């Protein structure tokens, strides 16, 4: 009888996903694969140029490897300036990019707007802020504003910085064209821009692949593969995996995801796999009837819960919606998360997700109607074209 309360506590704890700790058997047992060692963040602050260089490198690693601890490191390096209302322009630009990576889009936009409004911002930083802002506005579905930013970049405002900025501006315009259904001209423009020596080859390949996929062309696959070869980013790998999943090529999709970190044992890979890739793996394994499907799904669920616990839950709405749609499945949750995500991000992938969630027979009717209406309105106002669903709706 006296044991009853402690039993209840144990039950509650186990419900909250707390496993019991253990003592390893031998000193040789390897507990963790560590990322490469970096110099510690110095206790006494660095001078601004060094701090900026190190922080920029950390941000780049965060994006390439999907490890948010690198963002923490970058923020630590910039600590003396981080909380200033108006930090030096270079810091402010980096801060905006980091906020964007953390999906804190409004705060990021505030910094970028301030940089472009400030007379003291050097031209090169201004160009970078303009391009970052254009990407952010495009992501949020604010296409007319994105278009004016891209037009400025492609024009003469930044000519003093050389041709690279103009090329980026034109790529950015071509992408907006492609989103709005000007397919032929956008495809031609992108193919032509790819020939410039200053052209961002991987980016252009990715945009061409995405455009081909929206148009329903088979050449998308080859373009995705070339883009991945040019720049093995998580984003591109996930996009190619989605292409394969949409064609029910489960085994190939799983192999592609697992090739992300081929130098490690497969067991470690599941834990170290970024969420976006683990999600594709879980879908591929489930659909392909792989025995490890439930393990991957449980791992994902645990990650979502852990993220929600620290208060970052909303940043994962895209992954959560996809998880509820293709892994769990749970129609109500899928639609709810897809709607939450649509409030934050409005790329073609997000529209496609929302459309799929609203089509589910088990989705709550009023919510589904609301979602379809929001999509229809966005399509009318922005001119978005996507063969995957535009024709069907």
């Amino acid at each position, binding site marked *: *009888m*006296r*044991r*009853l309360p402690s*039993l*209840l506590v144990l039950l*509650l704890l186990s419900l*909250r996903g707390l*496993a019991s*700790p253990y*003592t*390893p058997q031998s*000193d*040789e*047992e*390897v*507990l*963790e*694969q*560590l990322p490469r*060692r*970096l110099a*510690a*963040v110095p206790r006494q602050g660095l001078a601004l140029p060094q701090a900026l260089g190190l922080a920029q490198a950390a941000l*780049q690693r965060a*994006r390439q*490897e*999907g490890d*948010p*601890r690198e963002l*923490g490191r970058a923020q630590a390096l910039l*600590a003396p300036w*981080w909380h200033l209302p108006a930090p030096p322009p270079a810091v402010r630009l980096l801060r905006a990019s980091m906020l*964007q*990576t*953390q999906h804190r889009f409004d705060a990021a936009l505030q910094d970028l707007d301030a940089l472009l409004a400030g007379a003291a911002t050097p031209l090169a930083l201004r160009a*970078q802020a303009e391009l*970052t802002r254009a990407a952010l506005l495009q*992501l949020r579905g604010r296409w007319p504003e994105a278009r004016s930013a891209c037009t400025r970049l492609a024009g003469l405002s930044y000519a003093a910085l050389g041709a*690279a900025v103009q090329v*980026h501006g034109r790529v950015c315009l071509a992408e907006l064209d492609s989103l709005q259904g000007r397919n032929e001209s956008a495809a031609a423009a992108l193919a032509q821009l790819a020939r410039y020596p200053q052209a*961002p080859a991987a*980016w252009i390949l*990715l945009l061409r692949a995405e455009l081909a996929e929206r148009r329903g062309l088979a050449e998308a696959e080859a373009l995705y593969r070339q883009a991945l070869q040019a*720049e093995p*980013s*998580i*984003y591109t790998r*996930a996009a190619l995996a989605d292409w394969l999943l949409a064609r029910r090529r489960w085994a190939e999709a799983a192999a592609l995801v697992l090739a992300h970190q081929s130098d490690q044992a497969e067991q470690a890979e599941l834990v*170290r796999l*970024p969420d*976006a890739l683990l999600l594709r793996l879980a879908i591929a394994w489930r659909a392909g009837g792989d025995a490890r499907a439930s393990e991957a799904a449980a791992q994902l669920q*645990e*990650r979502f*819960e852990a*993220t929600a616990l*620290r208060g*970052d839950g909303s940043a*994962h709405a895209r*992954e959560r919606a996809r998880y509820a749609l293709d892994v769990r499945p749970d129609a109500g949750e899928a639609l709810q998360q897809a709607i939450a995500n649509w409030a934050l991000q409005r790329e073609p992938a997000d529209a496609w997700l929302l459309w799929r969630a609203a089509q589910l027979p088990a989705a709550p009717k009023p919510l589904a109607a609301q979602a379809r209406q929001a999509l229809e309105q966005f399509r009318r106002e922005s001119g978005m074209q996507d063969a995957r669903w535009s024709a069907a709706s």
Partner: protein
Amino acid sequence: MKRALMVWLLLLCAGAAQAHKASDAYLILEADATGLSERVDIALRDLDRELQLDADDNGQLSWGELRARAGEIDQLARQGLGMTLTDADGGRCTPQALAPLQIDTRSDGRYAVLQRRWQCRAPAQDLTLNYRLFAASDPTHRGVLSLRGPAGAAQTLVLAPDGHATPLRLGAAHSLLSVLRDGVHHIWIGLDHILFLLALLLPAVLVREGNHWRPAAHLKPVLLDVLGVVSAFTLAHSITLALAAFEILSPPSRWVESLIAASVLLAALNNLWPLLLHGRWRLTFAFGLVHGFGFASALRELGLRREALAGPLLMFNLGVELGQLAVVAGFMGLVWGLRRRPGYPRWVLGGGSLLIALLALVWLLERSLDLDLLSPR
């Protein structure tokens, strides 16, 4: 500058592929009547970054490498948590030695598990955390605190490593109504108390004549008998409950629990081989004293402050009596209706008492010899 710009532009193209979780540590604090148990889980990756644990620098952290540095890890955690704890009397609670280091696996890798107890002289009450773990190396780090007070109410808090003091109160004041409910709850889940009562009530609707039982003809003498038994039990356990609650008398719980089991056994055996027929209230009073000590341990688990004990004690006792009254009323209605059935003496009284006796015997063995015969009980 051009080169830097190119790098920057390339960076943009990677897209916002948000991935893994940022760094978190988990604090699980559970307060009880005599202190608090502390558990801190810290990611091995964070510890290695901070302390360079990977001694042979091969990119793999082994148990041996980790274990060798347990002291430094604990020191880092204690500085990072900045925890102070005082008890209900305002005394400082003292942290005990670190339990042996352990490991746990979470969604983003392995964690070191640090556990220790904080000892207080009275129930733990005021907790202050000055959280600044990894403040210098990762401002996006968070401490996820799960805090359970002595009454069992849990709260979750997310702490940023900003060094701000976070004051938390543990011994949330119990409302008198909740203590009343606790009393009712305690008697209802306390199978041993209930069986003791049932064993006493089973023969109340019968009259012993020579060597066999006959149904009682009138309700009044039966009710008087029941009233006597229940009052004796109530009076006795109220006395010892108060004595134990104010710590005037506190016999070892193993003895108390064993004697409670013995009381159930004797009450049931007295139905099978009646020795004491008249004045059963005396037996009830004697054993009621023991049951009162048992109630006291449940009251102690609520972690009440000693200077404000009178009100809750009264309410808890009232709850016990109400719960008991409900059991008695329901049961008496049932057996009064059944008493004329020919099988009542043999099957209900005899069979029921035998079952109660057997269960009580198991309890008696378990509790006196500290065995686990029927777990979980």
